[in-house]
């Protein structure tokens, strides 16, 4: 479904990614893991077109994204739940959800999708007329995920959804991601919470200083010597 082929990405003169490649197949739950500054966000931003690779390319559903403007990737079915949530703070919960369903296909199902999201996150229903900026951290993350789901995406990319949340909420978020995946939505998850992610994903990539250093099934990486030492502290 998604193929990232040997991309090099720069910020001005400074290189952030070196020959990064990864594949996500339909229905998979793929995790991209790594320490702070490894290049995870850069990778997601390049997939959604906010950044352009200097070398290599990205294909989605067989189509080369090199010349697709960033705003069109949503229409193609990629929902990107960005780092730090990036909600529209002065819009209500409901308006934020509506903003997630602008492309034509998603717009047709707007009402239906909203009901679905309100059953997934009952808290959001209670707060639907409240401004997003006034929500708690956990509620904001739920809203960010909900806004992504409003697209009825083929691929849902999540950038550190557990960041800054209380431990019980972290469990909650991982449960919901699992549930979304089981409903048939392909997931590409970026996380620093390596333990949790490896436990729930089907496949994982480890990114270190802008390079993919390891890849494999989640369960296999859990028992990998290097992963255990560097990320799990065992």
């Amino acid at each position: 479904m998604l193929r990232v082929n040997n991309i090099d990405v720069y910020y001005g003169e400074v290189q952030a990614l070196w020959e990064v490649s990864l594949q996500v197949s339909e229905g998979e739950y793929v995790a991209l893991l790594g320490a702070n500054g490894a290049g995870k966000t850069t990778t997601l931003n390049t997939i959604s077109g906010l950044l352009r690779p200097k070398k290599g390319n990205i294909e989605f559903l067989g189509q080369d994204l090199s010349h697709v403007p960033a705003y069109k990737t949503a229409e193609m079915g990629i929902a990107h739940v960005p780092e730090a949530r990036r909600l529209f703070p002065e819009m209500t919960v409901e308006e934020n959800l509506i903003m997630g369903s602008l492309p034509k296909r998603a717009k047709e199902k707007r009402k239906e999708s909203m009901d679905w999201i309100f059953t997934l996150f009952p808290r959001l229903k209670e707060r639907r007329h409240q401004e997003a900026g006034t929500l708690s951290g956990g509620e904001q993350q739920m809203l960010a995920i909900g806004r992504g789901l409003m697209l009825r995406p083929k691929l849902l990319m999540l950038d550190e959804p557990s960041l800054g949340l209380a431990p019980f909420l972290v469990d909650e978020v991982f449960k919901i991601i699992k549930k979304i995946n089981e409903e048939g939505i392909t997931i590409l998850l970026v996380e620093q919470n390596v333990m949790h992610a490896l436990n729930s994903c089907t496949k994982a990539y480890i990114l270190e200083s802008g390079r993919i250093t390891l890849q494999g099934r989640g369960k296999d990486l859990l028992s990998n010597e290097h992963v255990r030492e560097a990320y799990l502290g065992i």
Partner: protein
Amino acid sequence: MSLFWQTLICGLLLGGVYALIAIGMTLIMGVMKIINLAHGALVMIGMYITYVCFHYWGIDPYIAIFISMPALFFLGCLIQKYSINVLIGKESILPENQVLLTVGIMLVLTETMRLIFGSDYKSVHTSYTGTSFFIGDVSVSIPMAISFVIAMVFTYALHIFLTKTDIGRSIRATAQDKEAAILMGVNTNKITIVTFGLGSALAAAGGTLLVPIYYLFPDIGHAFVAKSFIITILGGMGSTMGALFGGLTLGIAESFGATYISMELKDVVGFVIFIIVLLFLPGGFKSLTKR
């Protein structure tokens, strides 16, 4: 006492038109993060279009709004697309310089009008010019009242547009978080063009509504840049509702200044209010609605 009410109503009515003009500037500021210093010149162009419509074709100023608004919408879109957005594409040019560009646009528009119409004052004389009606013993100017009502209708229509349509919501989203808006599928480049067009159309509407009340000349735009800027800051930058209250406040303040202090000092009163609000309410009126 009737002088007091007279002053209040007069200020309120004029303030409504100021608000409409300032909301246009606020919209552009929200999305582009720049002060559009050509805004007053756009008001002025709107006034000249109205003048021409009346003078050459006998079109009533209030009907001319249907000509001046689309014309300025189109002009605004062109300015954004072929001038400001071109500058944004250049990495070597600082974003602050977009403001300088708007000064350049202001000069071009002002001098073009001077070339065509000369520097002298113009005005239109309609059947309702100078007419008024009475509430008790307070006389209310009919053209001012009509202009106020139309300005409020447009303000309300804009509010509905911004909150109930996908394009309107996309404009607000782009103002609040441009990158997130792109991820939602918003073509933010197009949104900047539409927003500049819309802001210009509102400037034009304000200009047209002033024609039955005011006289016009090429440099009149400068006064409206200053007023719009004050109102935008008073309202809390980027807030439409804030700009509405800011506009009414400025109109009333100017009116009281003119009546009770002196005609020459009415603009000073506006600045004094501006400074007081900045001192005691740095976020503008918008911060009053926030807990």
